[in-house]
C-alpha cells in the first residue's frame, strides 16, 4: 500500500483511524422552535449498515414528509462542549460546583445528505453541538419558478427515545 496523501494537517489526525460511529445521531430530533415554517423534525436510523435520514417539514397545511435518504457519516473535528450536557458534575467529599473538563463530549459525528424533490434539491449538513442537532439546509430550486436558492439553519432537540 502506498503512503496516504495529505491535503492539510487535519488529514493526519489519529482520530481518523477509526470510522465515525453514527450512534449518537440515532434519534428523532424535533425542532426547538415549535412555530418553525421550515423543518419540523429530522430522524436518523441505520439500515443495511448505513445511516438514513428522514425529514418532515412544516407545511402551511400540515406536515410534509420528505421521506428518507441515505446519508454520509463524517467524523466531526470541531466538536465542542466538554460533555456538559451529559456528564455528571465532579464529585468528591463535597459536591463541587464545577464540571470536569472531560474529553468525551456530548457530540457525535456529522452527516451530509441530499434530498431531490424534482423541482428542488436540498443539501443537508448536520452536526451535534452541546446535545443539539444543528442542521444547515442548502435549497436549490430547479423549476424555473424564479425563487432564489436559499440557505437556512435550524436547531433540533433530541427526543428521549432512540429510533
Amino acid at each position, binding site marked *: 500500500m502506498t503512503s496516504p496523501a495529505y491535503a492539510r494537517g487535519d488529514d493526519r489526525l489519529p482520530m481518523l483511524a*477509526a470510522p465515525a460511529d453514527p450512534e449518537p445521531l440515532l434519534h428523532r430530533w424535533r425542532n426547538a422552535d415549535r412555530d418553525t415554517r421550515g423543518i419540523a423534525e429530522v430522524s436518523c436510523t441505520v439500515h443495511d449498515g448505513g445511516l438514513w435520514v428522514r425529514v418532515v417539514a*412544516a407545511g402551511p397545511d400540515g406536515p410534509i414528509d420528505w421521506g428518507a435518504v441515505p446519508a454520509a457519516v463524517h467524523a466531526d473535528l470541531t466538536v465542542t462542549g466538554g460533555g456538559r450536557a451529559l456528564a455528571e458534575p465532579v464529585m468528591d467529599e463535597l459536591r463541587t460546583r464545577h464540571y470536569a473538563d472531560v474529553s468525551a463530549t456530548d457530540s457525535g459525528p456529522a452527516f451530509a445528505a441530499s434530498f431531490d424533490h424534482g423541482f428542488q434539491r436540498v443539501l443537508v449538513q448536520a452536526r451535534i453541538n452541546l446535545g443539539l442537532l444543528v442542521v444547515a439546509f442548502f435549497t436549490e430550486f430547479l423549476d424555473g419558478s424564479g425563487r432564489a436558492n436559499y440557505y437556512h439553519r435550524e436547531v433540533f432537540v433530541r427526543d428521549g427515545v432512540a429510533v
Partner: protein
Amino acid sequence: MDYRAGSEPDPHPPAPLDLVPILGTWWNTNHRTMGITKVELVVRGRTPWMRVWAADPLDGPHEWGEAPVTAVYADGPFSSVVAGYTATFELGHARTAIQANLNLGLTILAAFTTFLDGSGRANYLSREFYSQVGEWP
C-alpha cells in the same frame, strides 16, 4: 408553485443575488489551524470561483487550486441577500465538499472530506471561521 416547506410558497420574485459579500480573501480566525487557512473568491464571467490554501505542519502549506462555486444561496426563497455557497474540490486522494454560510461578518466553512484512496481514514467534517479583517502575518 410546488414547495416542501411552509416558507416557500410566496409569490414575490426576488431580485438577482448580489455576490459582493462573499467575494475577496477570507482568513481563518484560528492561526493554529491544521485545516483551511485562507480562501479567495472571485468572479470570472458569470461564475464565482473559489481558491483554497491549507496548513500542514509536517509538509508545509498546500494550495488546492481553484474550483467553481456550484451554487449560491440567498437567506430565503424570496430574498436577494446572499447567505451561502457550495463548491467541491477534487484532491485526488480525497474529495472535499465545501458548504459555506455567512454570519455576523464571518464566513463559516463546513468542509466534508471523503477519502478516495483506500487508506481507511474516516471521512470527516471540519468547520472553521473566516474573516476579511484578520489577515495573517
